[in-house]
């Protein structure tokens, strides 16, 4: 029997994309700025978010955070110390967050009355790139200790981000970090990306990021 061919033409991640679209609509209705933060493990997502959130709250803004982790709730506890309502999404070994996990986690934080919702993704430079979480903005962190060629090794992730924060900038000298080369690599895989630099520990560059984020709040 001759095989019958059926045209499907559907996105493989369609169910995630539809869930993300619904989230994006809900977020925009409540006027919440949603920021998805991605990086490799240990780039300093939690450290930077803790200081950013503290400063944003000081400015009178309401901030919520949900954070994905494979096993522990350490990060949520650290974020809580900054004053934000936070919730830990335990992915039980899963390497990324998806839109359904976000939808469920939203029951645990008062996001509807917030100005900003941070989503701290699982530390991983591969898988989270493919999953839309309904965010308005994706920030990728790249620490100086990781090497200048990270964007060339993980182009999909760098290409999917709107903002790149070069973190741990205070360690540049110790690791012989070539900033010019790093920026060249970042823009070669994403010419439109906006680049910041920071050191959460030393408080360098944090205010510039705060100014940028607050400029986006309506």
């Amino acid at each position: 029997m001759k095989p019958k061919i059926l045209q499907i033409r559907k996105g493989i991640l369609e169910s995630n994309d539809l869930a993300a679209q619904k989230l994006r609509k809900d977020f925009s209705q409540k006027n919440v700025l949603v920021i998805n933060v991605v990086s490799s493990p240990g780039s300093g997502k939690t450290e930077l978010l803790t200081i950013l959130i503290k400063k944003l709250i000081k400015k009178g803004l309401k901030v919520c955070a949900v954070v994905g982790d494979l096993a522990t709730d350490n990060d949520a506890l650290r974020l809580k110390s900054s004053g934000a309502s936070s919730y830990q999404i335990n992915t039980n070994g899963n390497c990324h967050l998806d839109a359904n996990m976000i939808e469920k986690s939203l029951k645990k934080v008062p996001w509807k009355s917030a100005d900003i919702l941070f989503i701290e993704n699982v530390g991983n430079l591969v898988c989270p790139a493919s999953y839309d979480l309904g965010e308005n903005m994706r920030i990728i962190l790249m620490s100086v200790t990781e090497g200048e060629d990270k964007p060339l090794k993980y182009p999909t992730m760098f290409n999917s981000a709107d903002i790149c924060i070069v973190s741990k900038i205070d360690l540049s000298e110790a690791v012989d970090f070539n900033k010019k080369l790093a920026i060249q690599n970042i823009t070669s895989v994403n010419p439109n990306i906006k680049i910041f630099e920071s050191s959460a520990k030393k408080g360098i560059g944090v205010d510039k990021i705060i100014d940028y984020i607050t400029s986006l709040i309506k």
Partner: protein
Amino acid sequence: MHELSIAQSILDTVRTNLRDKKTVIVKKIHISLGVLSGVEKESLQFNFDLIPKDKLFKNVKLLIKENVLEVYCPKCKQKTKIKNSFVLKCAHCGNLTSDIVKGRELTVDKIEI
């Protein structure tokens, strides 16, 4: 790493879009995979063969068409196919461009039953 979830999503996508789930058996699934989709071809093929399948997908084969990266340059209005790198540079004028025409796709194109 997430190729296992992607493999499962492929089966789910076909199942959702198939009207007659009772009498047919899906023999082949054709998908398109852009090099910038974040999914690795070999790993996906391996994981796809590994996952348990019910009667609908008994002995199903996954055929993957890999799409290279293609960008459009707004400056000189030409397209460039980018091979062996992910540097989004126009081959005609050297301008960097973020206008990606091809390379991000992750779609089920057709099936054979």
